[in-house]
């Protein structure tokens, strides 16, 4: 009876722009300042104050829009979104509604529904057990954050599993970081993500009832939250129930989802055009200029790595979608003329990332320089160190830095003289005539004994492939 159920995920992302001042007043933006030091009559909503739009914020938003391949509206308007909350000093948020700044874009195979500009709310902290406003003894408002320029990006429901949602968000973060428009830091709240989740039978063209997930303030929580919600919906549907449309709050501690009280989200926002502001009407030339000034973005970089450097798609993606890793890689490629980019890419995305992660670091933050990694991969390619030795050298590089050739010498990891190796192989064949005979007779596995003997003799420094080649050569195979 149970047809296969497939999830559908859409994301709604808020990005704080890295402008000098707030969206509608001249107050400075500074994360982590003393509460309520960056405020003025405008961002405190004093009577008679009027919003003055931040040109830099509008430019940044247009930059984001064109980077996401959107069409920028020739004329979009601001609206007032009305609701009462202590973090909203005017009792309405200035946002965009029926005509957003931009629509119809695409990033990493996911369609972008819209991109619009708005102002952030102030920061509320609730004193009490729950950390939420109901049941708290007191609430404190810090208006420093209030009025920060915010870009909202809404995707179409094009994502089909939680890991893909996480990966896509990482791609978006890299793209935005590359644009230099935001800190895109989820812990500090400059990048925030809500998810719309629904499930439906695989054969059904119609989407199921969706729920909205909030408060997933890390990449891991996004994945876990969406996973938990899919599981919850699956259970409801499989036991014959119906999913209800609601907004759910993700609790990272327990990994659980709890419905928000209806009062916390059920609003008729009574949108209407903001009479205090003129429409946003960028000229076609300004939009073209924004498009022309875009840096190379992750997807273009991935394509270039595949086409020009011959990297495998997965490796190209891993490098290209991580701006700092990509920069490390490109520097290594430039430094190491002798090493093939593909080998470098494998070492960087493989061993280097793993070793750096053991120390809780990004590769760029370790003692290993791109040039040193390139040099090491060059030694390996020249057969001057084997894979195991190279990994040992890399460990040293990550920990202490240094020059790979010198480390190879110091740790005596050199693969040694080829003639010497041939002599060792010859000796091994003579000493284990039995194994040699088996290999000759076509018993392939027997070669392991001979290789093992050579490796023991060379204390593991010889290159395994080279040893195998020499054994077969000397046995005339």
């Amino acid at each position, binding site marked *: 009876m149970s047809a296969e159920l497939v999830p559908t995920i859409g994301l709604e992302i808020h990005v704080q722009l890295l402008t000098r001042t707030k969206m509608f007043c001249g107050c400075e933006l500074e994360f982590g300042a003393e509460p309520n030091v960056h405020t003025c009559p405008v961002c405190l*909503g004093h009577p008679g104050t*009027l919003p003055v739009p931040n040109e830099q914020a509008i430019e940044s938003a247009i930059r984001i829009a064109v980077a996401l391949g959107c069409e920028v509206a020739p004329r979009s308007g601001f609206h007032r979104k009305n609701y*009462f909350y*202590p973090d909203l000093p*005017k*009792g309405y948020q200035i946002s965009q509604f029926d005509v957003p700044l931009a629509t119809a874009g695409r990033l990493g195979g996911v369609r972008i529904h819209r991109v619009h500009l708005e102002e952030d709310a102030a920061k509320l902290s609730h004193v009490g057990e729950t950390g939420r406003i109901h049941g708290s003894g007191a609430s404190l408002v810090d208006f420093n954050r209030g009025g920060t320029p915010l870009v909202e990006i809404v995707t179409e429901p094009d994502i089909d599993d939680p890991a893909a949602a996480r990966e896509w968000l990482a791609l978006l973060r890299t793209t935005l970081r590359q644009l230099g428009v935001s800190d895109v830091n989820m812990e500090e709240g400059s990048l925030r993500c809500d998810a719309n989740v629904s499930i439906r039978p695989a054969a059904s063209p119609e989407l199921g009832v969706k729920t909205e997930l909030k408060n997933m303030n890390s990449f891991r929580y996004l994945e876990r939250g969406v996973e938990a919600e899919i599981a919850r919906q699956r259970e409801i549907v499989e036991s014959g129930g119906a999913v209800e449309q609601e907004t759910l709050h993700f609790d990272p501690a327990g990994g659980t989802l709890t419905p928000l009280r209806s009062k916390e989200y059920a609003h008729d926002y*009574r949108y209407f055009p903001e009479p205090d502001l003129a429409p946003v009407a960028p000229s076609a030339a300004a939009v073209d200029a924004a498009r022309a000034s875009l840096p190379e973005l992750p997807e273009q970089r991935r394509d270039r790595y595949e086409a020009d450097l011959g990297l495998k798609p997965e490796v190209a993606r891993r490098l290209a979608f991580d701006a700092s890793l990509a920069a490390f890689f490109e520097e290594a490629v430039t430094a190491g003329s002798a090493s093939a980019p593909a080998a470098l890419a494998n070492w960087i995305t493989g061993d280097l990332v793993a070793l750096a992660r053991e120390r809780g670091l990004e590769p760029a933050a370790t003692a290993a320089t791109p040039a040193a990694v390139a040099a090491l991969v060059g030694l390996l390619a020249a057969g001057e160190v084997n894979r195991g030795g190279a990994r040992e050298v890399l460990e040293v590089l990550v920990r202490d830095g240094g020059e790979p050739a010198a480390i190879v010498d110091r740790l005596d990891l050199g693969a040694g003289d080829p003639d010497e190796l041939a002599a060792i192989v010859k000796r091994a064949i003579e000493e284990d005539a039995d194994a040699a005979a088996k290999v000759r007779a076509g018993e392939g596995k027997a070669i392991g004994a001979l290789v093992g003997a050579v490796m023991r003799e060379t204390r593991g420094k010889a290159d395994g492939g080279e040893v195998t080649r020499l054994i077969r050569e000397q046995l005339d195979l």
Partner: protein
Amino acid sequence: MSDPRQLTVAEALGEIGDGSLSADEWFDAYAEAPDELGAYLWRAKGAGAVPTGGEHGPLAGTPVAIKDIFCIEDVPTTAGSRILEGYAPPYTATAVERLLAAGARLLGKTNMDEFAMGSSNENSAFGDVRNPWDRGRVPGGSSGGSAAAVAGGLAPCSIGTDTGGSIRQPAALCGVVGMKPTYGSISRSGMIAFASSLDQCGPLTRDVRDAALLLGALGGGDERDTTSIGFPEPIAIPGREDLEGLRVGVPSELGLEAEGIEAGVRDVFERAVALCERLGADVAETSLPNARHGISAYYVLAPAEASANLARYDGVRFGMRVEAESLDEMYELTRSAGFGPEVKRRIMLGTYALSSGFYEAYYGSAQRVRTLIAGDFAAAFGDFDLLVTPTSPTVAFELGARAADPLAMYMSDYCTVPMSLAGLPAISIPAGLAPPDGGGPELPVGLQITGPAFSESLILDAAHAIEGAVGFDHRPKLAEGRR
């Protein structure tokens, strides 16, 4: 020396110039006069307590009364509402800064209908204002305190705000000049918002020349208000004595056919129209077919904007707060106690008009009517340079007469709302006296003159010519003595 309280600003500046009056004498004559009209909510103590304003600005030393809707740093500012009782803004409105920069001196803050919502000043949380012509009657509103102060010898000039008639109608009812300039000509920064797309600052004065003097000082673009662009040309001091070559239209819907127009108002208006012809104008009847829907559209749009503009009075950051157990309860108790009935009525109206499912039927339709009315004016200004109408269908009514009937009160702005919806400049000047329907004392009647956007200089010129021909020299009896 003549009584300084009878002088226009230009006359007093002349006397100061020739040494027959000192700026401090001028100031103190007003500062010391007893306010028996309830015109002020806050008054300066006297010339000694106020900066002199210098000697060189166009308004050097001019005492000015400011409607309490304008924020002035550290000066109590309530907009006539209990919810802002005790509030002293942290900044000063641009319009006030410009007056002070021109040399004006702050005489006081004038009483007004709460948040500028009303046409009689009876909606002030701090008491009624009396009409100096008959203290049993209203001064009009919402800039009732400003109009009464200028008419009643308590200020030589004032600034108010006009959203649907709030300068022009009280000016008419008090027998003074009041002008609402083109939307966008004067900064709204620091002017407490009622309906942002309609609110506009303007002067209330004793004659047309003074109105031009203040308007010139007030106008200008402001980086704090991106909807303000100032006047394209400086405001000229009007000197015209005739209307030769001007085509003057009389829109029937807002003229003799205006809803609820009193017989006395009709007579004065007809005489004024005849006067325009005698002054050389080419006068003809015209039509603004959609103007009759102005009040309906206005009472959707203005409350809709107001419902959002007044959301900031929530007890969280400034003004009144009624403590309560929960946030929602605090909001409810604070706003229930802080706002008066008319403000609550308009918040409810506006909230309803914007609600999901009703938006198109109300807000959407009203916006379309607004566009149609603007189109009517544009068509009329194809044929005419100026249009004239009565400012108010009636003379000043008795206190309490319309208090129980909001719709009757709303009709007070029947002739002024269409210009507001179209963003056009309009002036009201005294055109004569007339008794109310049913009998009573003779009371001032205003003539409204309107023109295309940014035609202020032309309007002022024409108003100056008509003012001279009308020769309105009636003044109410001033209260004597010192406060």
